[in-house]
């Protein structure tokens, strides 16, 4: 009887996993490497940057929206915090800085405040609005003191079919990309990085 218990647990977990997969729709949101370019951060002399683990401060962490037709939850294939952290790392590295585990010259810390897909309507002209909002802080790598912070919001509107998984992904990809581009072209962020001692 006892050897059967692990099998039973594994079976229950498998059934629950399948049930969860059927109940939600998964989209693979990302910030592709090919989209990343050098921007203002490249004008700062190379720094060793610690990109701290991103904190997920969303009110609803279980989903990023609901399908327009049957209101099933839409979820991301990876953790939202990991998606945002990877995007930040790509921007920092592309601009000639070295991302290190620690210690570094500067610490970049981000909170995700929103990562959400809204849908208006249920027809072939459903309007999607994707929003990505993050709070970014720069801290001195040696003392840990926060020296600068700012919020960024990337929004994308797109009209598409009510059940278009492709549109859901494109809308969220673009909202994320717009957020990252605002980060990469922010003169004040570049200045605060430049002020941190090497």
């Amino acid at each position, binding site marked *: 009887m006892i050897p059967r218990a692990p099998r039973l647990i594994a079976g229950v977990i498998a059934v629950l996993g399948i049930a969860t997969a059927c109940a939600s729709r998964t989209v693979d949101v990302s910030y592709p490497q090919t989209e990343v*370019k*050098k*921007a*203002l951060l*490249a*004008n700062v002399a190379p720094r060793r940057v610690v990109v701290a683990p991103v904190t997920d401060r969303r009110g609803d962490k279980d989903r990023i929206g609901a399908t327009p037709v049957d209101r099933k939850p839409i979820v991301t294939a990876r953790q939202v915090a990991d998606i945002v952290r990877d995007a930040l790392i790509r921007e920092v590295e592309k*601009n000639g800085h070295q991302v290190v585990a620690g210690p570094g010259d500067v610490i970049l810390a981000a909170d995700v405040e929103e990562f959400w897909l*809204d*849908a*208006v*309507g*249920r*027809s072939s*002209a459903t*309007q999607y*609005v994707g*929003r990505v*909002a993050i709070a970014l802080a720069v801290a001195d790598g040696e003392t840990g003191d926060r020296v600068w912070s700012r919020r960024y*919001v990337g*929004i*994308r*509107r*797109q009209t598409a079919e009510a059940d278009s998984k492709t549109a859901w992904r494109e809308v969220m990809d673009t909202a994320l990309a*717009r957020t990252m*581009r*605002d980060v*990469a*072209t*922010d*003169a004040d962020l570049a200045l605060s990085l430049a002020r941190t001692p090497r």
Partner: protein
Amino acid sequence: MTTGLRSAMPCVVALTIILLSGCASSDRPPAPRMRPSSAALTDLRRLVVVTTGESRFTVLHGVKEPGRSFDDVVKWLPGKDILAPIARALYSGLSWLLDADRAERTVPRDVVPGTVVAEAFARALQVSGPFNQIVPMDHEPVGDDRRLADAIVRLTVPSWGLMRVREGDADVVAGFADVRAQMVVRETGVIVWEHEEDVTHPGRLSLEAFKHDAGLTRQDLVDVLERAGRRLASELVYAQDGRR
């Protein structure tokens, strides 16, 4: 009509359809526009920013497609096959009229959308861009203004206004602006950068709130136009690929 001709009829019709469909425009998406190389943007130091084209103000709150409750009612109607399309057309027409009426009552008449976008675009580029001089103008430059410019950026705001951005018990709307920008080298006329963007205000409020507070509406719309200018500047700086 002879029996032979009658039997050939379906083939003739099918052949005609095939030939006509060959003449019709295809549904294939247009070829992607060539992305300008960042090298083409170097050595452009003096910019003139001008606004072009018409801007249409809209308040898109009504749903052009009737919802489920509409379908539930229509399915019980006698002669629904005929009545349903008529009812749908009527619904869309009324919805459009309501939107047009709302737009007429909401538009802030002292706001020139292109000018607000152009000024915000120029301010943002002065802070973060590689350009020495950026001059926003409300018309195409002539004389010395034109001769001294390295490039001309033409901005268009085809549509702006308020749009429903979330569905639910309390529908909310936000300011929006659809913008286009094109940078042309003055000497050669070569387009070195083009960008289109849907810009939406991060803030969301009920349409009632906007209807009852003209000052709030004006502020929200100016905010989204300025955001559009900053977004365009951000995309232009990003397109430079680190060149300053």
